[in-house]
């Protein structure tokens, strides 16, 4: 099972600054180890939703770095709003995590 993401969502004015760290190998399909070539394995799609409404729909290649980071900003957010993130990789593995928008510091 995929590891949980680490999501921070902080309100700055009326905009939520959303920072997402995911754990994923993002294998390019060409890396050789003693036990052969590691198959291509990467996140292809990331969807960010604000209170259930999609605000970002991303498509990635294997050129996104291992243990990916994604930062987005969502306008019209309030403290307590739900931000959910779903990634899906080329093997069909997926993971969804959710946080509430926190007050900015």
């Amino acid at each position, binding site marked *: 099972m995929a590891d949980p993401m680490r999501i921070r969502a902080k309100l700055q004015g009326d905009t939520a600054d959303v920072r997402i760290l995911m754990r994923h190998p993002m294998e*390019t399909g060409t890396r050789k180890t003693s036990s052969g070539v590691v198959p291509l394995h990467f996140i292809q799609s990331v969807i960010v939703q604000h209170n259930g409404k999609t605000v970002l*729909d991303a498509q990635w290649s294997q*050129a996104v770095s291992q243990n990916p980071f994604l930062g987005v*900003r969502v306008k019209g957010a309030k403290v307590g709003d739900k931000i959910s993130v*779903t990634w899906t990789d*080329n093997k069909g593995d997926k993971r969804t995590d959710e946080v509430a928008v926190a007050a900015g510091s």
Partner: protein
Amino acid sequence: MKQLRRNFLKLSSGAGAIAAVAAAGLLQTGSTWAAPWNKSGFESKAVADIQKNLGVTNLIDSEDIVITAPDIAENGAIVPVAVTSKIPNTQRIIIIAENNPFPLAASFDLMDGAEGYVSTRIKMGKTSAVRVIVKADGKFYMATKEVKVTVGGCG
């Protein structure tokens, strides 16, 4: 460490592998209706082909696209790239590492209140221009920034 680096430099030289994945079918992301993964775009080796496959036409150079990335990346495997588009109604941000074997790194569709901003990290095999294409109100705008990639390391 050296091994890591060498493997990295061979980054995505296997087009066949990608084709196989893509052939397995378009992605289903459950309740969320993700747009189908742009197989032809991600498989293209030339920037012109990527643009064709993504339907990019009549590119306009724009100073309203700000690319934040290092001038010199110490580690080509983690090159931070942030894009801020000040163009109104920015709908899509596309990041292309021109000298990568498969240059199209990522494409972001923004909707319903997302600001014209994304930040991520990409792998770069060698020094290259990072090209950012922004789609706004159906028009396409472009900016580039050169990122020098040194092999780095101690070995």
